[in-house]
């Protein structure tokens, strides 16, 4: 498949804009891990860390965290540094799914900073919306969300869209998303990478081809980032825990304890039984997802952007069925989460230095629910 894709020209820049929940983290981890080797092939992945989110948030003037509480503006200099580094005469790749909900004017300005439509190509990675739904819900859970999956789906598919639903579809209406980028850099500079469900290498092959890298260079670097999905019972545990504590925590406190302390450790250190119930999308929503997916598949095929992979994959129906809310949690899951938090808390004796951090940050209580991460 990769051989049929022509690389972007040397001296140009590939801007990977997500979308969220399409395997972006795996790609970014591989790019970061291969950074030195990339240089040998004339490819620059700017910066030193795994992600470029900070620079992108800075460039977009976007905040990160709970709205109304603890959301922080990122200093502009992070973007300026990235722009500086991206002046590279080989190929440059920048990747952040936080680009998937910036408004066109902001995106246009950022592209302008990076050398404009004559230098920048955009890659949009897409998975079927049916696969996105449970992932997006889970991602929200990791940010304090308390609505059950069914309620989330009702919000997403309601005729009358709430602002939250608007935000969701701004990101995940795949046709509109791709069209926004086509309008900015042109259809011939817009790549749509369709990732079949369960295919862990498609994203690597596509970027290897677009960056003219030897086949397998990125795929071989696939770090086992255990960013696996939560099972139904794990998700329910996190949801209920959010209900119990999220209101009384600031974003920082939530991140430190629940997100990193409990959820991340539960997901990373535990390997659920293969027969443990996965999250199922109820049939009514699976129907809707399939419908939307069909519309996206058709629209993507018709929009003139360069498509890598088969748009028909976007119309896949998600794993569906009726589910009962789980009432029990596997013991190893409970232990993995709590043990990690106990350990974390016992080694972090607060110091004067931390107090300093607290003073300078001036934390506030959380005003109301809602997160902008998904």
């Amino acid at each position, binding site marked *: 498949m990769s051989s049929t894709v022509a690389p972007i020209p040397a001296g140009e820049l590939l801007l990977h804009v997500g979308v969220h929940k399409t395997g972006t983290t795996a790609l970014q981890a591989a790019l970061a891990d291969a950074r030195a080797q990339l240089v040998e092939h004339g490819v620059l992945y700017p910066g030193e860390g795994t992600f470029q989110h900070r620079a992108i948030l800075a460039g977009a003037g976007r905040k990160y965290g709970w709205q109304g509480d603890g959301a922080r503006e990122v200093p502009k200099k992070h973007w300026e540094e990235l722009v500086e580094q991206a002046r590279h005469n080989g190929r440059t790749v920048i990747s952040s799914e936080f680009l998937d909900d910036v408004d066109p004017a902001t995106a246009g300005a950022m592209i302008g900073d990076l050398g404009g439509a004559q230098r920048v190509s955009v890659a949009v990675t897409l998975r079927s919306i049916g696969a996105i739904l449970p992932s997006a819900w889970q991602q929200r859970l990791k940010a304090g969300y308390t609505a059950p999956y069914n309620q989330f789906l009702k919000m997403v598919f309601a005729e009358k869209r709430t602002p939250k639903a608007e935000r969701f579809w701004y990101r995940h209406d795949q046709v509109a998303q791709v069209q926004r980028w086509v309008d900015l850099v042109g259809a011939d500079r817009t790549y749509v990478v369709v990732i079949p469900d369960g295919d862990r290498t498609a994203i690597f092959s596509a970027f290897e081809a677009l960056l003219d890298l030897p086949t397998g260079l990125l795929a071989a670097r696939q770090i086992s980032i255990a960013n696996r999905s939560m099972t139904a*019972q794990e998700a*329910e*545990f996190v949801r*209920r*825990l959010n*209900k*119990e*504590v999220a209101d*009384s*925590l600031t974003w920082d*406190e939530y991140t*430190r*304890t*629940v997100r990193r*302390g*409990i959820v991340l450790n539960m997901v990373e250190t535990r390997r659920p039984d293969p027969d443990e119930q996965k999250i199922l999308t109820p049939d009514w929503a699976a129907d809707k997802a399939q419908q939307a997916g069909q519309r996206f598949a058709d629209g993507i095929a018709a929009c003139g952007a360069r498509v890598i992979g088969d748009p028909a994959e976007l119309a896949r129906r998600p794993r569906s069925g009726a589910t009962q809310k*789980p*009432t*029990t*949690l*596997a*013991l*190893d*899951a*409970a*232990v*993995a*989460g*709590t*043990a990690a*938090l*106990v*350990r*974390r*808390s*016992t080694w*972090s*004796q*607060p110091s*004067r230095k*931390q*107090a*300093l951090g*607290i*003073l*300078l940050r*001036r*934390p506030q209580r959380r005003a109301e629910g809602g997160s902008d991460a998904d």
Partner: protein
Amino acid sequence: MESSITPIGKGEVLLHVGLHKTGTTALQVALADARGVLEDYDVRYPGKTLYHHKAILAGADRPYGWRDNGARITPKKHWKKMLKEADYPGRTIISSEFLDDIKPEIGARMVDDLGGKQRVNVVVTLRAIGAILPSAWQQGLKAGVTTGYNQWLKVMFDEQQTTRAERFWYRHDQVEQVRRWAQVVGADRTYAVVIPDGDRTAIFTGFEGLLGLPGGFLANREQIIQNRSMTTPEAEFVRSLNKELAGQMSWDEYTVMVRRALILNMVEKRRPAADEPRIQTPEWAADKAEEYGQRFAKGIAELGVQVIGDPADLAVRPRSGSSDRPESLSIDAAVAGTAGLVLEALAERRALEEKAKTVAAAAPAPTRGSRWTARGAARALKRGFSK
């Protein structure tokens, strides 16, 4: 049940020595709650806190905590203070189950400190050993034990007693326990209160009688202390967590995080469904428990001490049956425990935050606009934190 029990003499001391897991906390909480009015009846419950554990640990020179990590000796002054308060013309009641495993010579010394055997009466509260077993195992879990119930029972009933089993039976061989005290203060000054399984008022009635208090005086003060038993899945959760954390924390850390923040919240904040499995003693161990119970019932009756209640209740067979090791935990339980943990994990940080804010408010103007400057904040904190 207006009392057929003759109260101890005026000016005397009633020393309640436990045992562990016989409802001592409920009694102590009621006594503490009644403290203000007790003296109207010429009864004193010394101190200001719920329990007398601190004073007793001090008096017995008994360390508390994990033997190899974090065990501490309590300063003697706590005992001395107690002695002063116990010098009272009415009846004094001292209660701590930490007396149930001290050596006889230490027990005798403490009795002497309190005025000797002409002044001190000892009361031992007893429940059927079959009821003690699951409670004792659970109590162990709350202190970091990683052994499963069946394994633990094997250790306790093994012919070859390990140190741990010896410690257990030193406390829970009820005949030996009561005999030790009878030898210190005499059989006529030793009371065995038998608490039938599931009877929540027997302990109150017993003490109301011994202290000359009106019937119901203590029982009516029973607080809802949700010191309920853990269910099988809860217990297995704690055990697995103990295993996961074994050797990685100090006693203090364990107490704060696991015991108080996690376990206590899980047990207190949640009411398990009626069908959630309760801990069952396997048949072989229930047989043993019944056998031991019969021996204890008989032995207690023969010791010549003053028995309140029916010794036959000590021979009751525990709820028995085979149980599979649970693999999952009710999400309620996981949430209650984890939420407690989360808030505890943040407590110190929040306290620091408060302190930082106080310091900030007290320090004059190291700010620019409404925000702290880094240097200003650092200076303010240095001052605040060196105080």
